[in-house]
């Protein structure tokens, strides 16, 4: 395929990506889409830190500052971290379980395009002048009274991209339940597959409450209902509950796959089987379960009462147990291993202490009486950046370096990778460590400036310098990507030389049907077992036969586009709270919904059986598809 790809025109490549249902190409789309929003969110972060560089700095207005931190949080969680994790999951999970694609290739594509159009819609808020400004949590007591359409971009954009996330979650669940190769029992699945499985089930049960509460907020603002309007009998605490019933599992949706990525990296570069595999699986499931039991620890100061606070405090602290199990398993995997220091491994080594700091401050906040002191201060900001950056972003950067050869067939420069890591690691601790103390010294979060002479000047200055170091690190990584892509030096199947799981038995990048013959799995770390027995590839589980493949289709783009169009109609409907309803709004809403549901109907009544790659063609194909021959 790759030799043909170079000759194709730009238009053909673009069309290929618009219509693709191949999980490896959708992984590229998620990487570019999520990467774009990651840069956007990063720029917003830098602008926030410029404003806080010195006391009473008038770099931006207070309104703009509110919009800036709202969009930074919303973008980073929904449009950067999750899609980037989906990129790695899509690229790796089907290969790790020996599948030719995900269970629903069409829905995989639909999930991406819904996320993409939702993200674009949310960010159009900047262009049209009213960005959301009520924080990423958008508490109804505040967001209901936000002027302009900012919050409407938030509700409609997140609703669209939320559908995409839910669809992707179900897709991964079914893929992992149904598409595993012969012999790949649940307790032989690689950790990234396991954590994807648990994170996907969290998505399945956490996103519907968000969907419901976003509908309420949307109805309140766009159709003047009274869910959160206290004067008409409404109750704003409903939003807080639903948001956190979603929001707390959400952080585990992000961190569990990150744990999975680090588990793969640590065992690969310690050249040892993951220590305590079954306890690792158990800990993952337990974290996923407990993740639903602790949402009210975000609401200790709301006034739910001592009994509720005590129960949620205890449940919160209990999560430290399975997380601790994981930390010790990683340490014991390295113990006695033949450790090779590479860029991904450096991130893994940096992750362990960084994440432990974030975990410890998390337990501190779990102590409800102490939380009354810490609530809404920079201590909270420091805590969640330690777990999200020190955990998730480290995992994404490590995973990008680790899986880059499998996704693109080239190896990112190790030298530039070291520089990125050192700058990012130092910059990260410089930015956020001092914020613990800023919080304890009394600096509230989400406030546009501070006064001099209160002991906050130096801390904020240090924090801003650190943020710029992280910015430079990311720029160097982009340079690294460009240089690597231009050089285009292709690598072999197992570029890290110590690959353990099945994806490393395949070409880099794998041929579009992944496996010529479905592999036979004989234990944990399938490819490692084969290598130890002197085999060059995987053992086939079936004779060579025709391969069934799905057809490409443009429909997912059209379905998503329909909702994108409908969202404008919804926003400018004549009943909206802002009072700038347009006569074209209702027709646009109907047209958009007709596009979406009409395309779904066409999809439903037009048969799509896919196509078969005949056996003869496979025999002549130079690609090995992972099988020893």
């Amino acid at each position, binding site marked *: 395929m790759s030799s043909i790809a170079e000759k194709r025109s730009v238009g053909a490549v673009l069309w290929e990506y618009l219509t693709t249902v191949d999980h490896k190409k959708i992984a590229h789309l998620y990487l570019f889409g999520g990467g774009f929003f990651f840069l956007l969110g990063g720029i917003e972060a830098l602008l926030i830190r410029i404003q806080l560089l010195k006391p009473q700095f008038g770099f931006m207005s207070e309104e703009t500052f509110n919009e800036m931190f709202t969009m930074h949080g919303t973008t980073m969680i929904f449009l950067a971290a999750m899609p980037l994790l989906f990129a790695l999951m899509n690229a790796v999970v089907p290969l790790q379980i020996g599948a030719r694609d995900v269970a629903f290739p069409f829905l995989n594509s639909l999930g991406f395009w819904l996320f993409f159009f939702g993200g674009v819609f949310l960010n159009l808020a900047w262009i049209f002048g009213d960005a959301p400004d009520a924080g990423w949590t958008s508490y109804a007591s505040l967001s209901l009274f936000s002027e302009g359409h900012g919050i409407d971009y938030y509700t409609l954009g997140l609703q669209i991209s939320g559908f995409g996330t839910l669809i992707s979650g*179900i897709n991964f*669940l*079914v893929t992992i339940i149904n598409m595993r190769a012969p012999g790949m029992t649940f307790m032989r699945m690689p950790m990234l597959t396991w954590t994807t499985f648990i994170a996907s089930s969290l998505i*399945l049960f956490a996103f519907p409450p968000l969907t*419901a509460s976003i509908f*309420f907020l949307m109805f309140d603002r766009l159709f003047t209902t*009274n*869910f959160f309007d206290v004067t008409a009998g*409404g*109750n704003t605490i409903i939003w807080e509950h639903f948001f956190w019933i979603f929001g707390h599992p959400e952080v585990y949706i992000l961190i569990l796959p990150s744990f999975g990525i680090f588990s793969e990296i640590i065992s690969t570069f310690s050249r040892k089987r993951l220590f305590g595999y079954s306890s690792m699986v158990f800990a993952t499931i337990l974290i996923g379960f407990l993740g639903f039991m602790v949402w009210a620890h975000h609401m200790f100061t709301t006034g739910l009462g001592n009994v509720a606070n005590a129960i949620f405090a205890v449940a919160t602290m209990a999560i430290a147990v399975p997380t601790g199990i994981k930390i010790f398993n990683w340490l014991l995997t390295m113990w006695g291993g033949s450790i090779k220091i590479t860029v991904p491994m450096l991130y893994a080594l940096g992750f362990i202490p960084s994440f432990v700091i974030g975990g410890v401050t998390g337990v501190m906040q779990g102590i409800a009486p102490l939380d009354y002191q810490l609530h809404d201060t920079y201590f909270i900001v420091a805590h969640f950046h330690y777990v999200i950056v020190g955990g998730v972003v480290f995992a994404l950067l490590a995973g990008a370096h680790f899986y880059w050869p499998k996704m693109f067939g080239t190896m990112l420069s190790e030298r530039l990778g070291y520089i990125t890591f050192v700058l990012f690691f130092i910059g990260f601790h410089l930015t956020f460590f001092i914020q613990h103390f800023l919080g304890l010294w009394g600096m509230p979060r989400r406030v546009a400036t501070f006064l001099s002479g209160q002991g906050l000047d130096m801390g904020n200055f240090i924090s801003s310098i650190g943020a710029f170091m992280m910015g430079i690190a990311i720029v160097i990584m982009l340079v690294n990507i460009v240089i690597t892509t231009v050089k285009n030096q292709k690598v072999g199947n197992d570029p890290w030389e110590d690959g353990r799981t099945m994806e490393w038995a395949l070409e880099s990048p794998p041929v579009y049907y992944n496996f010529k013959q479905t592999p036979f799995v004989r234990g944990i770390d399938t490819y490692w077992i084969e290598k130890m027995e002197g085999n060059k590839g995987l053992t086939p589980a079936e004779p060579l036969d025709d391969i069934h493949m799905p057809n490409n289709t443009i429909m997912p783009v059209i379905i998503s586009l329909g909702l994108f169009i409908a969202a404008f109609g919804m926003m400018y409907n004549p009943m909206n709270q802002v009072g700038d309803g347009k006569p074209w709004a209702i027709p646009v809403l109907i047209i958009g919904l007709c596009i979406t549901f009409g395309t779904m109907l066409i999809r439903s009544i037009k048969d799509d059986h896919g196509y078969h790659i005949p056996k003869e063609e496979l025999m002549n194909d130079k690609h090995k598809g992972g099988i020893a021959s």
Partner: protein
Amino acid sequence: MMAEEKYTPQTWPADPEKQTLEGRNKFIGFWLFLGGETVLFASLFATYLALKNKGTHVTTNELFSLPLVFVMTMLLLTSSLTSVYAIYHMKNFHFKKMQFWFFITVLLGATFLALEIYEFYHYVHEFDFGFTSSAFSGAYYTLVGTHGAHVLFGLGWITALIIRNAKRGLSLYNAPKYYVASLYWHFIDVVWVFIFTVVYLLGKVG
């Protein structure tokens, strides 16, 4: 097994919806989707209970009339039964009978929906109880209306299946489609049982 193959009652397999990989994927995927839907409706129920009779000039006791809702409940429960008949005939490769029972299901569902629209119309015009009247009315219409929208979607879905496959009979390609549509229809029915209990019965006695 090939999805496009032709079958006779003798060669038709026992679980036609789970014979192909696509079928098995749809089967599990749809059950999982219904899990997510359950959480969605649970959220709507919780909101309804929190906002019940809040900020309203007319309470559940004055608003609801059980005879109408009882008829609606019977219609929807019966439509669930007829969809079971349809699937029974699908498993026995009786295409015509399956189509007939699905058609009856659609008829019953449409009658239910018509009565629901009448009910809403009645509340708005007799009691001045609109979507935006109060916190209670918003929660009520969102919960019951979301269910109604699901019924509407299900009617469109099953109708499309009946028309699309009218001329070509059963195959392992469309059997899973019919099967998940019937799953969806049962789910709608179960949600209604909870609405009948939590909204209407508790509204009258609670």
